[in-house]
């Protein structure tokens, strides 16, 4: 899970002290995070806490095909920002590795803990995926609040990253909070996409509009929130097949997460 100090060359070729290597398993692949710097102990401890659902106890047989992520921290006051940026770098690295393999949506997802039936809620950043994940994940299994990776067969490869919770004071900083700390339900063995909804947060509190989309309308609503779509074989056909299978796709226009929580949970046979 965490190895001790060793020396590796940094990009300039000089030797740099790597205090800890954190191994993660997520989105169907493995990745190493190399924590360095004067506050590396603090950093790796915070990383282990935040990434508790992704810590890997396995030693990969061969080299990981995901390039390692470097996380450097000298000044302890920069911890929150370092964690936030490292989360983004990890997500980019995982997406890069799975490009051409998985259909990847910028979305949150929860799953029925017994049936594995899963709800995927597609939305741009800042429109409520994390808040909904936090609320839905108290009764349904938390799969991710950021990137849903879907196999050819419609299976979801969980990415139970820390939830990136925006601070209220508007600094732009997000706290990386472990799903364990939030008591979110762990992912089931084999989550499958069951329903897809497109979230639009443009209503006043208490107002919800649900609209069924045709497959073509759904495709255009979802396609902007895909990653590396062009790397897949016959990408539009693959996306349309998913939307067919998980239809009818709903556009959910809402104001507050509490307004739609029950409705969304009900789509996969859950309750909120």
């Amino acid at each position, binding site marked *: 899970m965490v190895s001790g100090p060793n020396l590796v060359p940094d990009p300039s070729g000089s030797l740099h002290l790597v205090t800890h290597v954190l191994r993660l398993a997520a989105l169907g692949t493995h990745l190493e995070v190399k924590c360095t710097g004067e506050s590396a102990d603090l950093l790796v401890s915070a990383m282990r806490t935040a990434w508790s659902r992704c810590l890997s106890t396995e030693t990969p047989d061969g080299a990981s095909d995901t390039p390692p992520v470097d996380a450097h921290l000298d000044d302890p006051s920069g911890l929150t920002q370092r964690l936030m940026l490292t989360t983004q770098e990890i997500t980019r690295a995982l997406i890069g590795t799975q490009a051409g393999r998985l259909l990847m949506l910028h979305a949150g997802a929860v799953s029925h803990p017994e049936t594995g039936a899963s709800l995927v809620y597609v939305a741009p950043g800042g429109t409520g995926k994390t808040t909904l994940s936090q609320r839905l994940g108290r009764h349904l299994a938390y799969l991710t609040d950021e990137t849903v990776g879907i196999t050819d067969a419609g299976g979801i490869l969980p990415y139970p990253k820390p939830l990136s919770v925006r601070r209220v004071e508007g600094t732009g900083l997000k706290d990386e909070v472990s799903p364990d700390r939030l008591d979110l339900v762990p992912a089931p063995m084999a989550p499958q996409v069951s329903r897809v909804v497109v979230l639009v947060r443009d209503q006043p509190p208490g107002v919800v509009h649900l609209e069924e989309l*045709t*497959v*073509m309308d759904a*495709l*255009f609503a979802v*396609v902007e929130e895909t990653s590396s*779509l*062009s790397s897949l074989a*016959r*990408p*539009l*056909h693959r996306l*349309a097949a998913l939307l067919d299978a998980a239809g009818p796709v709903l556009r959910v226009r809402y104001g507050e997460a509490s307004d739609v929580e029950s409705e969304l949970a009900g789509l996969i046979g859950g309750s909120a």
Partner: protein
Amino acid sequence: MKVQRLEATDVLTRDGETAVLIDGVVLRLSEISAEIYALTEHLVEVSRLATDLESRFGAPEGTTTRQATDAAVAELIHHGLLRASS
């Protein structure tokens, strides 16, 4: 003028609508634009396209078939789906 389509990553048609993924962008084509795209695998004279479109869809209202074809072709060129060759 002759035109020829540029190869898309993927083309999907559903219920009379067509989506084209090209250069990482997905475009939604009308039925007429989709027909032009389908007819331009090889270099084709725009006048020939106009004839084929009129036989397929009939004459447009309020304009000539050639003007309507020119406008649709210009839009497809603008979005990078067709290239023109004089």
